[in-house]
């Protein structure tokens, strides 16, 4: 949903913000704060002092085997609940396990529409998409999956998306004529799988089926079909009974997504795997404790995926993992918003996020302050994996080249 909150600003007194900074200054300040937090907490080095030869040079011989996993830390999380001193308790796995091994980019700005589907679509295309956030329609520009498969002549099984069910079933491939149908990623929607596996009788599993936190009272129909069941049995090699049994043990949709992602890694070993988390977006209901719990869960799940990378022979040693939120959430002080609850104001806190790059070809323990845009991800993946995202409007991240 696109909110009208900016319209409220003109008639809302604002006495808290004094000496107002420009949006770019604010974004920079947010980014620098993250660097300071990390420097204090993890003793990481500042990237500009370490710039030198490309970390990917040594990896080129193994380029054919390279795997890339992208996790969008979906739903947006703010500094004060994550990297700020008071928030670090919520992300122990990121802070103590993943970030010390990673290159951390402190300032990733999303200049596009702050809705989850459209923002994730923009991340996959490298163009700020303008599609309706609530419609199940494909991105207008070619996705990273299409560039990857077409340029490198990879089979459909080599690019997968695991995503929440809200519209994301069309995220695998665009409507672009020169790419599009047949060249995209396979998309698995765990909630669709669950719906199919329970034949619509979801009484025991309803806690996993909620969707679209942006408007918590709107629940789109989730339809499972034969195709989903085939995915379960032929691709994931998972019986319906086993899947159902496992679903009963997980507490959230993202846990189910990670279970499916790990299964895909075992059975299909895709070279490009994109996992979109969504639990954090429960913040839209206004319950702060649930938002915090979701951050803690997502933190744990990111570490779980990294652990799976280490334990899977196909991935161990040759995988680059990228973790980034699709965007942030509104600042407490912005009178046009309601703090953590939404991401509607377009303020610096809602647009500015971070990115973790770890594993093959990255420099561990380095913090980079240089400003990036979220659309820079696709050209960077192109540079890493050897394809040309010609229609992307972002720039390759030089620190990853």
């Amino acid at each position, binding site marked *: *949903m*696109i*909110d*009208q909150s*900016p*319209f409220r*600003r*003109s*008639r*809302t*007194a*604002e*006495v*808290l913000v004094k000496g*107002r900074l420009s*949006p770019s200054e604010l974004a920079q300040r947010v980014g620098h704060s993250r660097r300071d937090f990390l420097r204090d907490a993890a003793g990481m080095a500042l990237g500009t002092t370490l710039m030198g030869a490309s970390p990917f040079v040594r990896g080129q011989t193994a380029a054919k085997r390279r795997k890339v996993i992208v996790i969008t830390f979906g739903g947006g999380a703010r500094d004060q609940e994550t990297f700020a001193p*008071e928030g670090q308790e919520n992300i122990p796995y990121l802070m103590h396990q993943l970030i010390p091994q990673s290159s951390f980019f402190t300032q990733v700005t999303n*200049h*596009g*529409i*702050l809705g989850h589907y459209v923002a994730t679509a923009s991340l996959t295309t490298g163009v*700020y998409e*303008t599609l309706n956030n*609530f*419609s199940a329609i494909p991105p207008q520009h070619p996705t990273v999956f299409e560039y990857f498969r077409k340029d490198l002549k990879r089979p459909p099984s080599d690019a997968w998306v695991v995503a929440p069910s809200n519209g994301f079933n069309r995220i695998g491939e665009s409507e672009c004529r020169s790419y599009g149908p047949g060249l995209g990623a396979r998309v698995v929607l765990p909630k669709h799988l669950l719906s199919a596996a329970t034949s619509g009788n*979801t009484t025991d599993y*309803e*806690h*996993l*089926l*909620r*969707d*679209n936190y*942006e*408007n*918590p*009272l*709107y*629940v789109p129909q989730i339809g499972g079909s034969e195709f989903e069941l085939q995915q379960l049995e032929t691709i994931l090699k998972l019986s319906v009974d086993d899947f159902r049994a496992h679903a009963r043990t997980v507490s959230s949709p993202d846990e189910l997504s990670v279970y499916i992602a790990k299964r895909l890694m075992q059975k299909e070993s895709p070279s490009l795997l994109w996992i979109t988390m969504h639990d954090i977006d*429960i913040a*839209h*209901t*206004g*319950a*702060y*404790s*649930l938002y*915090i719990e979701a951050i803690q869960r997502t933190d744990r799940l990111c570490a779980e995926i990294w652990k799976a990378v280490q334990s899977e022979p196909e991935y161990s040693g040759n995988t680059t993992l990228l973790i980034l939120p699709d965007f942030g959430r509104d600042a*407490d*002080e912005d*009178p*046009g918003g*309601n*703090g*953590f*609850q*939404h991401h509607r*104001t*377009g*303020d610096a806190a809602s647009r500015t996020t971070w990115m973790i790059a770890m594993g093959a070809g990255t420099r561990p323990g380095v913090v980079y302050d240089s400003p990036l845009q979220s659309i820079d991800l696709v050209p960077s993946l192109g540079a890493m994996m050897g394809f040309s995202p010609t229609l992307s409007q972002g720039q390759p991240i030089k620190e990853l080249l």
Partner: protein
Amino acid sequence: MLPSSLQAEQFAKYPPEARKLAAANLRALQQLPLSFLPGLLREVIDFDFKFPAERNAIEKELANLSSLSQAEANQWFQEFTQISLSSKLEHLDWVNQPGQFLEQESAYLWATHQLDAFRKAATDYGDRLRSTLLVEQIPVRRIGIAVIGQGVASYDGPLFRNLRKHGTYFRQVKPENGLELLLTVVADRAKAHPVPYGHWYVDGGQAVNHSSFMTCVQYRALEPVRVALLKYMQTEIGRPGMGPEELRTNLARLKPSDLGMKGGDPVLDRFQVKLFTEGSGTQIFSTTFAQWTAREALRRAQPLTLLVRFAPRQRQRPMNELLSGSPGNPDLDFTGSLIDADMAAYYQWINQQRLPGSEQSSFIVWFEDHSQALAIAPSLPRGAVSNSVIDLGELLSLVIS
């Protein structure tokens, strides 16, 4: 149609007082840009159902606009005139449906990457308006009170973390009869300063006995309204083609009588309906309802006194189950509700500080039936801890003295 073509008869469908107000300020309205005017008309069209503080603000804003020469108006609205809108937007009935216009304008601004420019224009306009208008003295120092943690037997986590640096943390408060003591002092204030909608008591559960001089909003009493709304939403969601944005538009049209409210205060009834139709999560969680009510009461009615008592919310349940409004007493999440309310108290203080007289205002948050409280007042040190043994009545007297 553009604003310059506005005629008085086009306000014929407005409620009486709104119609009169718009017609009286026609010349001023005609010179406003389309990117701005519907935002103002959205306020004007509801004038008959506005709180006194809102009416006062609208009248002052219109008086200021009427006082501007054409050259001055051009200067004031230069940034808004640079926003480009589509011809489709120009053809909408923005006079009679300003809210719908704003939804579409908002979507258009996001899609055309003009949101940041609009945001800046709105902020600059608001700053300029505030610097032009005289701030009226309020008759008594403003005070906010948050009572959190109802029903929580014990909690070891830190409380009031966001507020501690702004006030004094009392750790030996006598909890006996705390709520009654607070309500007694508040009632005395309401009686001594009988300002319409000037003294509020919001309860996230069932309100306790309170002074008739206070405006009371309570979650429990609104249960029939909430149930009627959920039923309406279920019906709407089931209609073909219905999406979140259409649903939101339809919700915005609901009147108190549509949800079974009869014979009450029309201003307060409209306010309460909007809490459910415009709030996100207010329909589900009582903690969110109380937080959003406090925010909207402060933003709109600008009360001199606001006491918000949070009640335990229901445990997070699957959205489908919640939507169906299934009978029975749901489990309560006491600790989660305390954490929600702790953050909500911080937001209550932030929103209070946006109002005139903030430098003299006071705030108390108390962990109900426990000995922890935090008080913010001009007379109290910031970031301090007090071991004074004090009851709630004495503490309140201390901050308002």
